[in-house]
């Protein structure tokens, strides 16, 4: 039987998807700074008026899955 996927691998996929979303819609605009994923999630949460935790919680993931416009939310 195939081994069951580890919970953390699912979590890694979620984080990868979140990073992809942030790269697309909340791109890093400065070359000098490299904000942490937590900071980037916070930026997204602030924009959408979500509870700002810096964590990839259900509310944040739900927002990331919603149909939307392809133009970044932070204009570059």
């Amino acid at each position: 039987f195939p081994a069951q996927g580890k919970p953390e691998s699912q979590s890694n996929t979620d984080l990868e998807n979140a990073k992809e979303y942030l790269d697309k819609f909340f791109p890093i605009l400065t070359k000098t700074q490299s904000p942490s994923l937590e900071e980037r999630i916070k930026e997204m949460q602030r924009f959408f008026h979500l509870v700002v935790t810096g964590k990839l919680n259900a509310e944040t993931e739900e927002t990331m899955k919603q149909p939307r416009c392809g133009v970044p939310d932070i204009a570059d």
Partner: protein
Amino acid sequence: YRTFPGNPRWKKTHLTYKIVNYTPDLSQKKVDDAIRRAFMVWSDVTPLKFQRVFKGPADIVIQFARGEHGDGYPFDGRGNTLAHAFAPGEGIGGDAHFDEDERWSESNREVNLFLVAAHEFGHSLGLAHSNVRGALMYPLYSYVNPATFRLSEDDRRGIQKLYGRKSS
């Protein structure tokens, strides 16, 4: 509301648009009508006038496309990204692209073309995304009845900052 960096905007009030292809999801008449009404959302509150052209260049070129479609910003299949548009400028500037992998509609089923087009044309005219929930320029799609649609105060202030008010 927000505008793009440098506040790009059209330096003229008479703008042309061209529809280069159609989605099979709706009749051509319904697409034409949705696009026309989407432009009216903005021309109702500004001095802007939109004229459709069928040949030659146009300020705002409208197309339906799927996946990679030549602008470096590929669409992603059904769901998620529905459309995108470019800020005012030469060439691709102002152009609006709609993901053909979506199911476009004139109602509350699937994705309403009029609502998405009105949003995208906001970008074509120089508005970036607003973080005001309920504003047309909010980035997430949500259905409202097109028959009773009204531009929010946030959107109106944004577009009038760029182009002024419609003279009475």
